[in-house]
């Protein structure tokens, strides 16, 4: 059975095509003002690479904050939509069946999900209206430090000292970064302080629903090597990052499509 999952996130749209539970192809693209158009490109890329047509896909399930943009809308015509929380749990369980806790840190949201049997959601928590625990925070701080966002993680790993960062919000944190720059603190140490702050914010949120091993980190921020060490330290546990962690929600959506057809 061939199904597809589309995760229309705040910054990227991710498309995954599954065949009998295995990933056939995946693609992603930046989300533009026209969300449907932004989704068509990666969707057609996956079709082209697999040699499939839309009719070959038995069912498409969309997730993410922009999911309604592709729900029943040609040429994609997603038949069903599910929330990211449900898709995350299902996707993480499919890839790592021992998962009990999923931490998803995306561009604008951080989420913690307690996962039950067969990838059902037992409980969840999402950050409320604050970018300080999400990928956007790293981007804003990278701008303040005048470094590329992809360099932030490797920079943090070179840090030699711990600098506390107390601001609770993205805007005030930027002021704090500027102050640290003026105080001649190195970019490496500031970068580490930024990642420590995100890890602290995310871990205190996830602890509200309880952290049980195995803990799986997904979402775009999982690709950032500077985030994993402080998160492990805050949670005092090992954290697994699956291959292509930013696609896990889309995998979950595709799995939900498969299960509803069985």
């Amino acid at each position, binding site marked *: 059975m061939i199904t597809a999952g589309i995760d229309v996130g705040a910054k990227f749209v991710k498309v995954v095509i599954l065949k009998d539970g295995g990933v056939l192809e995946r693609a992603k693209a930046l989300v533009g003002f026209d969300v449907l158009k932004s989704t068509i490109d990666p969707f057609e890329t996956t079709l082209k690479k697999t040699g499939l047509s839309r009719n070959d896909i038995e069912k498409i399930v969309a997730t993410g904050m922009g999911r309604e943009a592709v729900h029943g809308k040609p040429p994609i015509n997603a038949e069903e939509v599910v*929330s990211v929380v449900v898709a995350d749990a299902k996707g993480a369980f499919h890839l790592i069946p021992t998962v009990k806790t999923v931490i998803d840190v995306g561009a604008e949201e951080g989420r913690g999900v307690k996962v039950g049997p067969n990838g059902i959601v037992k409980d*969840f928590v*999402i950050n*409320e*209206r604050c970018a300080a625990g999400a990928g956007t925070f790293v981007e804003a701080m990278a701008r303040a430090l005048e470094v590329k966002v992809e360099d932030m993680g490797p920079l943090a790993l070179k840090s030699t000292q711990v600098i506390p960062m107390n601001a609770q919000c993205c805007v005030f944190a930027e002021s704090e970064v500027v102050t640290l720059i003026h105080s001649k603190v190195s970019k490496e140490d500031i970068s580490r302080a930024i990642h420590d702050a995100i890890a602290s914010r995310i871990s205190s949120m996830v602890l509200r629903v309880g952290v049980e091993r195995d803990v799986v980190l997904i979402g775009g921020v999982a690709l950032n090597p500077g985030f994993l060490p402080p998160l492990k330290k805050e949670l005092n546990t090992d954290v697994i990052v699956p291959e292509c962690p930013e696609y896990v929600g889309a995998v979950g959506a595709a799995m939900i499509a498969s299960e509803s057809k069985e």
Partner: protein
Amino acid sequence: MTEIKKYPTELLKCWNEGKNLRKSYYDDYLRAHEKGGIRWAGGAWTFSSIPAGLGEDVYCITGEPYGATIAFFKDFAAQCHDAVEAAGFPRTLCAYMRNYWGAILLDKHVLTDGTVVEGAPIPDFIWQDHICCSHGKWYQVVKWLEKKKGKDVPMYCVDVSVGYAGPNEKIEDYKVNYIIQQLNDGIDWLEKVTGREYNDKLLCDAVWNEIKATSLWAEICSLNKAIPAPLDEKSMYSLYVMATLIKHRPECVAFYETLRDEVKDRANRGIAATPYERFRVITDTQPPWGFLKVFREMEKYGVVSLGSLYTFGLIGMWEFKSDGTWAPKTLPEKKPQTREEALRAIVEWTLHKPEWAHFYRPELKTQMMKEIVDQWKVNAVLLHYNRGCEGLSVHIAENRLGLLDAGIPVFPFEGNMGDEREFDFAGTMARLTAFFESMGLKKLKE
């Protein structure tokens, strides 16, 4: 998309009667002086039966419902927030209180249909009780703001900080006597500041009305155990409010008797508040008043909110019966006949108010919530982490843990009852949708 059973629904026959009662309440306060009467201001939990002894032409405005009314009319609420912040008050204070102060600062008054009239009516006196930090300071600032306009409004506050007795527990005499003494002094004070002679018979009538009205509301809420629920919480907000305004008045008792009979009839005939009920929830604390459409969005998933400890117990009086059920509080054996009997009756009655558990005994609040979940056949609890009311939110995270320990699904969300800037409708709906999906619910066919 799933099709499910559709229950019959009907509009409440007494809906307009309630609406008119609310309208006349605000009109009476506004025009009290034109009618030759006097008016006072205070909180919804104040001992409103006491000023009733000054005569039949004594009208009040209670601050929390008025603050909620302002919140409902967002444009006016935004003006109030701006005025309060411009005056130097922080936006972290009680949102009702800020709305109320804002109207005074703007010298405007909002009516129940949203009409804003020039000239905020100045009360002849303030009659308040101190139950939370904001209640304590609220009217001190009102007095200060009115004084700036040239009117020195006399103020009396009753300290009720003797702890919460719980629904069934005996209250120590010294606690009751402490409050009775303040009320006795208050009656002398009322005579002095109004120049009126106090009438004990009117006091006894008012106390008896208050006891009956608050027990009747609990009886009405009990009828929502029926499946389908005959009332939904969004509608209940417009109904419970009567007892936050005029719990001491005979009109309130009469309206609740009519409502009780109608709701009983609806329950017997299987008339639903919402046609597609399939998942029952309760909430907690005041809702974000500017966003009551959340309840309508929930209905698209077949979810009905059938109340809350807040809706049931803010003014409703309850007790645990011998079989463990949580039920309307039994009325005292007889109506009070003297001032002393009336004051003792109303103090003992009030100190059993379930909603006061928020302040003093979170574990008891959790217990009452669990009883509601069990007896009203509730599937999940939605907790409003209400930044606008520290008093009712103070232990809410502990309540969440207690409910989770009991295996009850809980969805917490952040917001503000009276300041729309602190409520993210789209974000909350996205999270709520995720919660419903995690409960196995899908959106119903439109």
